[in-house]
């Protein structure tokens, strides 16, 4: 037994130092050179931090673009999805209620215009994005409340639409927090 146990113990000790000590500290050092200095990139507005670029936050007021439903209510101390199965009757009822709620707040929008992400919860519960269609469908509501032209808002959404990576790979998306800050900055 000694032939194996002693080397095992010593090897373990040394590898812990290398793999769990030196390696992550080296990465933390590299992280200091990145845009967010390894702390995560924050977004400033009117002289204060209003959020993290990557972390979705709750927008429920009618004058803002809403984000997606969240199973953790955008509590970024945790994270998670609803884990509801596609055939679960309670879940389908909930989706139906979200559709009804969305239509109540967005009169004139038809069911076919609502993209699925606006009535389904994301995997992390912190999804920061919408599809361009998910933002555009809310333009009429916000234009009316804020008294700006729908055309101007649609243009704003277009400006904030991030194209697929390299223009070829993956979906297009809109960061809801950045879009809403731009919305507040619009001259009325």
């Amino acid at each position: 037994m000694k032939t194996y146990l002693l080397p095992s113990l010593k090897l373990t000790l040394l590898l812990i130092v290398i793999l769990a000590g030196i390696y992550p500290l080296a990465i933390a050092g590299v992280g200091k050179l990145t845009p967010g200095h390894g702390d995560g990139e924050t977004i400033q507005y009117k002289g204060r931090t209003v959020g993290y670029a990557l972390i979705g936050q709750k927008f429920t007021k009618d004058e803002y673009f809403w984000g997606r439903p969240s199973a953790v209510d955008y509590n970024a101390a945790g994270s998670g999805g609803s884990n509801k199965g596609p055939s679960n009757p309670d879940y389908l009822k909930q989706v139906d209620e979200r559709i009804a709620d969305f239509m109540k707040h967005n009169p004139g929008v038809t069911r076919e215009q609502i993209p699925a992400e606006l009535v389904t919860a994301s995997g992390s519960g912190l999804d920061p994005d919408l599809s361009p269609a998910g933002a555009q469908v809310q333009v009429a509501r916000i234009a009316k409340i804020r008294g700006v032209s729908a055309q101007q808002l649609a243009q704003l959404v277009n400006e904030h639409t991030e194209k697929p990576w390299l223009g070829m790979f993956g979906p297009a998306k809109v960061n809801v927090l950045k879009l809403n800050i731009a919305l507040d900055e619009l001259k009325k």
Partner: protein
Amino acid sequence: MNSEISGVIFTYLLTLALAIPLGRYIARVFKGEKTWLDFMAPVERFIFRFSGIDTKKEMNWKQHLFALLTINSVWLIYAFICLMAQGHLPLNPDANPGQSADTAFNTAISFLVNCNLQHYSGESGATYFTQHFVFMFLHFVSAATGIAALIVVFRALKDKVTDKLGNFWDYFVKTITRVLLPISFVIAVILAFNGMTTSYAGKDTFISMQGDTVHVSRGPVAALVAIKHLGTNGGGWFGANSAHPIENPNYLTNITELVAQTLIPVALVFALGFYLNKKKFAYVIFGVMTLGMLMLLIPTMNAELNGNPAIAKMGISQPTGAMEGKEVRFGPASSAYWSIITTVISTGSINSMHDSAMPVSGIMMMLGMMVNCFYGGCGVGILNFYIFIIIAVFISGLMVGRTPEFFGRKIEAREMKIASLIALLHPFIILVGLAISSYVLVHMPNADWAVKPSAWLNNPGSHGFSEMLYEYTSSAANNGSGFEGLGDGNIFWNFTTGIVMILGRFLPIIGPLAIAGLLANKKYIPESAGTLKSDTSTFGVMIFAVIVIIAALSFFPSLALGPIAEHFSLR
């Protein structure tokens, strides 16, 4: 073409383009030839000298197993103690408590065996200390264990009659210093520059645009995520794993993490060809594995891109596909690809919630884990495949009326017994676990556990059954993903899946090593006109048939009660 689908194709082709040279490199490392990372040699010499290891001492297969099991036992005890005590240990900026004994039992096994089933949430159930000194450490060494075991089998296949199969410590340490550590470093740097956090600052607080006070969990995530994928481990920093925006910030990191987890399993197939100088044989294996993967992937992509029929009935549009549990920045195509890659390979990380996937996708993900060797985890994927090769050789031999031989060695009763036992072990531990949990659910609904059995299932009917089936399949395959709606944070699940995980890890390592060791000792029979050729497509078809019959069909009844039933109820 749709940019989501082209993204998936690009990701796979990039993986291949990197895996082939990596395979050649890995073969060179373990043949002892010159490589451009030879500057690591002094580090290795220091490690061996410090640990009192003489790498020139060659081991037979039993000694290899002794070494492997001894060091794994050390890690198990170490991990268990750390997890229980984490509340009192340093590096705990969020003041999280220690884990309960049953959770620590499950978690320690889970990370030891490269499974990473997580019955806790990273934000609250682990500390920076355990994330580093237990999880990140085990990410490296569990992957290296699997690869080192595979190298022993490579060696046994190569040499003519011999006992001496190299030195386990040598294979193990070189896997870390020459493969895992350098590549992890590169991946972690890419991830860090794309917004993944690396600092030790702990939680932050801000006031949102609407005036809500929000706490944000952070941490040195990038270093962990790199090896979590490269080592096909899958255990994430955050509860939502790689669906979390910090753990997977954008489409580029998504591609990086996908390539990282597929890279070594595919490279090892090519490494086998280069190491044994039997490239055609490697292509046959690669072909069978890729065919299997595609047969699971295509129906999944189709189901997810078409969206949920029950939601379509409500009249809203699903232009991108099913979105429940998915992130906008990845989209359903890449989420479908990830869910298949992570299950055929034993990673178990996720970028979407598998519990909310379409029933067809659920079938495909579970089949991926039931087969567990379409690429498979680091090292162990090919070890699992090796079992199917042995069975296929034996059956083909019987069919043509010849003594079954593989690489010049006769396969006889003893090897076949081992291979059959290992092949049957997987369905056995999954289905027995499932039977017990179903019994407990029905007959003891109010048992006094952290989560009562009556509250286990997050979804009614056949989908709830699928949650339990998935959990045991994932444990036995050392995968670690879950239908996370399952209330698994209690003593029943912690204990039963812990046992399933440990059996599902070590027996499938011991079996192939034993067979390879036994075969290496046998008389070498030179190839003749009567030899069954192992590097032909006919033999590939034979292996595929064996896999389908043994691995897939034994699960058909349970799949029928779960996701297949749900699929038809959704129509």
